[in-house]
């Protein structure tokens, strides 16, 4: 049994079909990339997995338990962590308070939540910011903070939505290092990404969507040779 399984997932918004019959699976401890041209439906699939939309058809299971149709907070409790395209850190709080709030899902006590928060901030190299306001951090730092926050709920699967977008090369390297460390902890990562040079080198598997349909599914090497994938990207640029 895979950690995450999507079976025949479709999502329609009125007349628009964002996802059509998408199926793929992710194993525990795997790094998977979800790529595709603009408008492919990547973020929609993401939001379905994280509970922000119920799928119009199909099922999503996490460790055998059906999570499709559950609200976001239930998906979080089931073990799905996520970040957003815009970091959405809690701006009235410090960095450690951001992570503490998430840690409280597992342990309500403020003292132990703070310990967890400090440990996770060190994990993403943000320990210097522990008591600084989240609002004073740069975009790249806030992204890493959002990752630390998501990790605090002890997820089995971490969904990352374009964490590398708009980062300079050294920031991309920092983020890649964090993702690898997460994988080493045994947490599976599903990453939506446009910055291919960030995701292709580290992914165990790549799923490619184009206009709502899955067009490829395999190792990075297989996928980068797949003619359907090449034409989807080139066709988009032409």
């Amino acid at each position, binding site marked *: 049994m895979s950690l995450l399984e999507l079976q025949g997932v479709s999502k329609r918004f009125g007349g628009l079909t964002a996802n059509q019959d998408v199926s793929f699976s992710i194993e525990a401890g795997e790094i998977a990339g979800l790529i595709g041209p603009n408008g492919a439906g990547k973020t929609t699939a993401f939001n379905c997995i*994280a*509970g*922000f939309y119920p799928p119009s058809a199909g099922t999503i299971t996490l460790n055998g338990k059906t999570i499709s149709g559950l*609200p*976001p*907070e239930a998906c*979080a*409790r089931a073990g799905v*962590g*996520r970040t*957003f395209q815009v970091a*959405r*850190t*809690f*701006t*009235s*709080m410090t960095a450690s*308070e951001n992570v*503490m*709030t*998430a840690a*409280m*899902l597992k342990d*309500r*006590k*403020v003292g132990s*939540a703070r310990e967890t928060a400090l440990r996770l901030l060190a994990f993403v190299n943000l320990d210097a910011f522990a008591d600084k306001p989240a609002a004073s951090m740069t975009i790249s730092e806030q992204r890493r903070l*959002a990752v630390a*926050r*998501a990790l*605090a*709920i002890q997820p089995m699967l971490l969904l990352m939505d374009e964490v590398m977008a708009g980062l300079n090369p050294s920031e991309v390297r920092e983020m890649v290092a964090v993702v690898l460390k997460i994988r080493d902890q045994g947490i599976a990562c599903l990453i939506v990404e446009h910055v291919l040079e960030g995701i292709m080198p580290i992914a165990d598997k790549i799923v490619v969507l184009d206009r709502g349909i899955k067009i490829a599914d395999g190792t990075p090497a297989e996928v980068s040779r797949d003619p359907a994938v090449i034409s989807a990207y080139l066709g988009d640029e032409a």
Partner: protein
Amino acid sequence: MKRALPWLIAIVTAVVLLVLPQALDATHLNIVILVLMAAQLGVAWNVLGGYAGQVSLGHAAFYGLGAYTSTLLAMKFGINPWLGMLAGGAVAALLSFGFGWSCFRLKGHYFAMATIAVAEIVQIVFTNWDYAGSAVGLTLPMDKEGWAVMVFPDKAPYYWLALGLLVLTLLATLAVERSYLGYYLRAIKDEPDAARSIGIDIGRYKQVALVLSAFFTALGGSLYAQKELYIDPGSVLSTALSIKMALVSILGGVGTLLGPVIGSVVLTLIEEFTRTLFGGSGRGTDTIIYAALIVVIAVFYPTGLIGWYRERVRRIKARKAGAKRDDAAAIKQEVLL
């Protein structure tokens, strides 16, 4: 020395508060009582409006429910006001469930409008309910006195009650602020979707904030009833009251513990000042001043007086840190600020 300052302020405040009833005459003591009562309502409102970020403009509904419940229980069933107060709190908390269930899915201004509508409905109901005195209102019996029935001929005991209730409400708010509940509410206010993504059931926690807020607001209503010994829809269910409860927090600083207290002091000072300067509130000059104040605060100082003060302190500290370096660097710091 700097560490001792907050403690010093706390001790001085405590001493002043203890001595006040002896030091002031009845009229001035009454003003202080009004400040305490307004502050308590502001603190209660703030749990929902400031911490959780749900702006209620109809909180008078809970206030009135508290006042009417304890009064009706005392008048019709002879129930002790101490119990009646708790009963009033319970009734308000109960109403808040129905209210939260139906309205928390609404965002921002929709929620605010729903609160106005609910408060109006409650006011209309009580204005037309003969059992509760309709528009004429209810007068509490004055035959007995003393702590058992919470009726006193002079002001001092009411001062202690108001102060006690304020301290109680502050302690409850502090307990919330320091617990996981406080963190959850702030998260809900800042980024509701992100809060959900870390497992927070936002509807449930908004409801918790509302129940607490409604409960303490209702206690304030009961205290008012026991003090004035007369209530009617106009005095305990009006929109003007709802506005004041929110205003006191906005003025002092939403989402801060002592913001509503400061706001209450400033607001009452303004009211008294304009009353003596322009004579009588018939011409409504105090209303004009405090309305202008609301607009100025909302536009320029949304974090209230406390927020403004903290920002000034931060700037002064930053400037001082800059002055320690050499000139060029100091100038650069000024420019960046």
